[in-house]
């Protein structure tokens, strides 16, 4: 039987209250959102926080998805299942639908949150690749107010993020650009498993050429979960199979997968190329008004 070590438990009733509690308990306190990464780690005693600060009561502040100007704002406490069910979000960005359908399983998705996924910072986290591809911005609140960090600078290493111990991730903001298509491709060993490898693609087509491209990669050791060299290759070129395949090849070249129980490194590198190619092709097909290539 797996039992967490002892800890103090506090329930936050507002964001400022959560920040006060973080201040009071100091760096050995941890936020708990869905708890679906943290509680398993506590059960295995891989994590032994002295205090848990529960933010599940903050849905009215942190659980909203809304279009605000030319951005889509997603609260940190939005559950995976809520993002999957949100038609505004998944119509604007089909990459969310693609990814959320294959993150964990439907029951886990009822608890796990968008913010928890990003803050966990697991090198195989699907949403880290998704938000990197989308060039989202993270909104972080601390005692001194709020600040923003581009998601591409949010992850500073495995399980390390830009969020300080006395801060809270409160929101992800995704730029909405007309003429943009997006998609996600993942290979997993079985339903509900973490990716062997996965790739997300976001492209904006303007006057027949690719004006902007975002490629997110997870579980393959891509720095900051993105592939800037491959993105660069796409800019200014007309979308097409060959261009996408070359971008995939470049993306695979720049990642650093490790062999583990999910597969050998060379297989993962192969997947990085192939999944990038497939994601780009599908992203291109769902650019609004695009003729199928």
């Amino acid at each position, binding site marked *: *039987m797996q039992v967490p070590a002892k800890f103090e*438990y506090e329930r936050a009733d507002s964001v400022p209250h959560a920040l006060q509690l973080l201040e009071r308990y100091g760096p050995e306190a941890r936020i708990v959102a869905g708890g679906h990464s943290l*509680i*398993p780690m506590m059960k295995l005693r891989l994590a032994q926080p002295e205090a848990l600060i529960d933010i599940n009561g903050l849905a009215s502040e942190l659980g909203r998805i809304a279009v605000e100007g030319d951005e889509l704002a997603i609260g940190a406490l939005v559950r995976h299942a809520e993002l999957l069910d949100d038609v505004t979000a998944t119509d604007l960005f089909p990459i969310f639908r693609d990814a959320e359908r294959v993150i964990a399983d*439907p*029951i886990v998705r009822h608890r796990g949150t968008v913010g928890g996924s990003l803050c966990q910072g697991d090198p195989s986290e699907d949403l880290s690749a998704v938000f990197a591809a989308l060039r989202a911005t993270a909104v972080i609140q601390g005692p001194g107010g709020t600040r923003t960090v581009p998601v591409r600078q949010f992850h500073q290493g495995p399980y390390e993020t830009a969020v300080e111990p006395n801060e809270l991730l409160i929101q992800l903001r995704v730029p909405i650009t007309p003429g943009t298509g997006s998609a996600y491709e993942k290979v997993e060993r079985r*339903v*509900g498993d973490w990716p062997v490898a996965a790739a997300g693609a976001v492209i904006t087509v303007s006057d027949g050429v690719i004006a902007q491209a975002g490629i997110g990669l997870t579980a393959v050791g891509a720095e900051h979960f993105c592939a800037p060299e491959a993105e660069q290759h796409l800019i200014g070129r007309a979308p097409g199979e060959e261009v996408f395949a070359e971008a995939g090849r470049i993306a695979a070249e720049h990642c650093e997968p490790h062999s583990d129980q999910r597969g050998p490194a060379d297989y993962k590198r192969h997947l990085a190329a192939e999944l990038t190619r497939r994601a780009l092709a599908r992203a291109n097909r769902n650019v609004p008004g695009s003729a199928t290539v």
Partner: protein
Amino acid sequence: MRITVTVNGQPYTREVEPRLLLVHFLRDELGLTGTHWGCDTSNCGVCTVQLDGVPVKSCTVLAVMADGREVTTVEGLERDGELDAVQKGFVECHGLQCGFCTPGMLLTARWLLDRNPDPDEGQIREAISGQLCRCTGYENIVRSIRWAADASHSQEARQ
């Protein structure tokens, strides 16, 4: 810490340690052993209960997180001595063998039919994809849930 959890419509107040998991609160504190406990790693889904109407894996939820909220376990499915349609479906279609996965399957099935009274096979398989069954090969579980959907329809038609 003192918590009050409403389980199957009845409030229970208990003094618990924050580290107590919901599955053990239900089984050991309240004696509701219909909720099973298997992998302990949020994979198998036998510990699934409804928290405020939504299926969750109770081995990965702290009991204190259910304070002030409503939990439904398999014991709460029948009404006035009559089994729920999903329970009847599992009986009619041989939806269980050893029964270890069954309580969790029933609670997810109930949630699915509340949300979507007429699910197709793909939607049923998707809904239960976070729960493992070592016995049935899933075929009869899918049939059982479909049976419950059909039974509920024909009941509505009669009314």
